């Protein structure tokens, strides 16, 4: 009998209740049980042309029907092995990827990418399944042997321990090269460690993945600010190749009144709370002070994470975004979660000034309402101000979550850069200095964990080739 297509009965991951969620920083998405995972896996049609569908939608091209098939066969170790052929951090990506715009957005049950038309159902919960497999292996304590090739005698330095650097280090170590990761901060993980709140990504998972890398022989050096502690040239001399994965993590401000004491970059607030655990202050020594009401400017991942954070600190939380929900780059369901948790979201609202007093305290955020006008160059309707709609959102602090910019200290003055200050590379991740490669946010100015990871792994392939052939093809210009 032909298998009945289960268009609509998509299983949802169990969640903590909103009232429970805001009480603390523990994860609120509880993950599939074995039963739910098996049932959900059975919804997959194992499309023959999946490489034109979900696999193509995935930035790192996970063999999606391949790993889901293994789940249905009850072979979770096999499913894990299949996953880490491409995505070495399934527990992380299953949690933080915007699947609706990637694999799940191209699942045949939901959207027919070949015929380019909407289908009638809901996609397979690919992200939740991926998370399930990664979590199952981690929690079960099953050790999956990850063998490194015999030592090649070559040494590579990786600068920055975010997803891109970790991905690159993993592959190079497996190929038998000696890998040293130089990280400025005291813990590895990059944005995953200091940006994304533990409510979305438990820190134990990052620790587990770092441990896997250490077992493969990767060495981490913390407290090295490349460009200050040690120069890129020095590293280049000491190593056979260098991979730059310093991200693009510098915060951004830019509004009248942004000097006031109550004005913060998103990165500052997130670092205080998520890296330094300021939510435990004064038990933890690093404080955070946002007052009672906070206004968060922005509409992407970062704004969502700031709102998750401020709600859990017990604050009245406003999010102010000049465009509409549909244009936000964050996961759509996150907005629902935030509203359930009590956040007030002001769509189509443009902040114009932070108002404060003599003492440098914030009194409010002056805003103007927007409406959708003619489409701009990207084809999206351009928001235009509504005359006479100025108003003030009263608040004690304002957080700028309007994106990051390049932090060039590792390569300033040494490498060719783009007009955004990111490192210029060719399609082999080669920079203008022979033997020096770059990837992740450092070359594209801010994207996703999975794409940064993909860069790291692809770059590792070219680094390996370079170590063998010493051929260099960067010509610059373009």
């Amino acid at each position: 009998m032909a298998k009945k297509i289960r268009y609509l009965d998509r299983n949802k991951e169990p969640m903590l209740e909103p009232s429970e969620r805001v009480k603390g920083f523990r994860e609120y998405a509880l993950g599939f049980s074995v039963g739910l995972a098996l049932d959900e896996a059975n919804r997959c049609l194992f499309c023959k042309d999946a490489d034109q569908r979900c696999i193509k939608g995935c930035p790192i091209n996970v063999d999606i029907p391949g790993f889901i098939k293994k789940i249905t066969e009850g072979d979770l170790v096999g499913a894990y092995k299949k996953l880490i052929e491409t995505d070495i951090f399934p527990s992380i990506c299953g949690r933080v990827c915007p699947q609706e715009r990637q694999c799940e957005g191209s699942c045949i049950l939901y959207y027919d990418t070949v015929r380019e038309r909407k289908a009638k159902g809901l996609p397979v919960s690919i992200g939740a399944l991926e998370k399930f497999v990664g979590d199952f292996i981690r929690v079960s304590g099953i050790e999956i042997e990850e063998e490194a090739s015999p030592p090649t005698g070559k040494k590579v330095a990786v600068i920055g321990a975010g997803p891109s650097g970790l991905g690159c280090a993993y592959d190079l170590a497996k190929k038998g090269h000696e890998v040293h990761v130089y990280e400025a901060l005291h813990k590895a993980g990059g944005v995953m460690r200091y940006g994304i709140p533990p409510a979305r990504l438990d820190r134990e998972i990052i620790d587990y993945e770092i441990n896997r890398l250490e077992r493969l022989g990767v060495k981490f050096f913390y407290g090295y600010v490349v460009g200050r502690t040690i120069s890129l040239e020095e590293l280049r001399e000491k190593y056979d190749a260098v991979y730059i994965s310093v991200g693009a993590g510098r915060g951004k401000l830019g509004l009248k009144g942004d000097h006031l004491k109550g004005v913060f970059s998103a990165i500052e607030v997130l670092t205080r709370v998520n890296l330094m655990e300021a939510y435990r202050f004064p038990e933890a020594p690093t404080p955070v002070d946002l007052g009672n009401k906070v206004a968060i400017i922005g509409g992407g991942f970062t704004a969502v994470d700031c709102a998750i954070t401020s709600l859990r600190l017990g604050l009245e939380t406003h999010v102010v975004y000049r465009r509409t929900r549909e244009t936000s780059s964050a996961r759509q369901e996150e907005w629902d979660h935030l509203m359930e948790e009590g956040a007030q979201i002001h769509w189509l609202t443009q902040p114009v000034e932070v108002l404060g007093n003599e003492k440098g305290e914030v009194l409010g955020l002056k805003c103007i309402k927007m409406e959708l006008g003619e489409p701009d160059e990207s084809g999206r309707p351009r928001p235009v101000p509504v005359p006479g709609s100025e108003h003030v959102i009263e608040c004690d602090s304002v957080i700028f979550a309007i994106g990051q910019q390049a932090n060039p200290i590792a390569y300033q003055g040494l490498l060719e850069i783009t007009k955004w200050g990111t490192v210029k590379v060719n399609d082999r991740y080669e920079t203008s200095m022979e033997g020096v490669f770059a990837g992740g946010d450092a070359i594209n100015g801010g994207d996703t964990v999975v794409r940064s990871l993909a860069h790291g792994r692809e770059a590792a392939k070219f680094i390996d080739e370079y170590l063998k052939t010493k051929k260099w093809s960067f010509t610059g210009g373009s």
Partner: protein
Amino acid sequence: MYKVLEKKSLTPKAFIIEIEAPHLTKAGPGQFAVIQRTLESERIPLSILETTDKGAKFLVEVRGRSTLELEVRLNESREIAYVEGPAGVPFEVKNYGRVLLLSKNWGIAPIINVGRALSECGNKISAIHVGDTSENVYLINELESFSGSVRVFTEDGSVEEGNVQLAFRDYIDCAGKPDLVVCAGNNLDSSLVVDVCREEGISVVSMVNTYMLDTIGLCLVCRLLVNDEQKLACVDGPWFNGLEVNWDYLLARENLYEDEEKQALEKFLKQLEREKLRSRR
């Protein structure tokens, strides 16, 4: 883990530590480091007092919870989990001519580090150090080892009474204008020194004090305006042309976490008292 090779008390409020950290041995004058005693501790930026064969020496003035905790806990275990650095841009060392060093409290540490390099490069050095009280007067011998003249004051009058601005004016009256003033330790004092320099047409390089968090240019908490442009104390500083710094901006952003700091200190003091009780039992 990094070893603390030496810990020496200077006054009840200040001590010196030498940390074994190979990456600090080549630090330039005026650079700093960031330490965390454990990975859960606050990140404390400390000016490098002196580099050694094995690492670097720092002066720590006990001001709040984190410095007090360092003082107390280092007596129990001589280990530090994390040492970042050298951080910041080194002071530009060249022959300026007659240089006057002005330090307030712990500012004497970076001042000694920079002053020594300036003296080795042929500058003629004079120095003035001002402490809040005599407990903030230390390392004067070191200062004297490369300075032609050194004067010391305290604001409470326990040593000769004086403040930075008056001492500076007095110096100009007696010795004439220096070619360069270098000052460190406190924004308010530095801003007053800069006012005098502006009036008198003297060049001045000052170390700015800001909160710091990541110290690699990400969080912007250490932002300031230099020539109306945003700069970061952690990666562009800590030394700037004092005449170009917008001191009002810096002063307005001071004391951001004053209440929290008080709370944290009280909490830690209570904990110490409890520990004492326990050990008596």
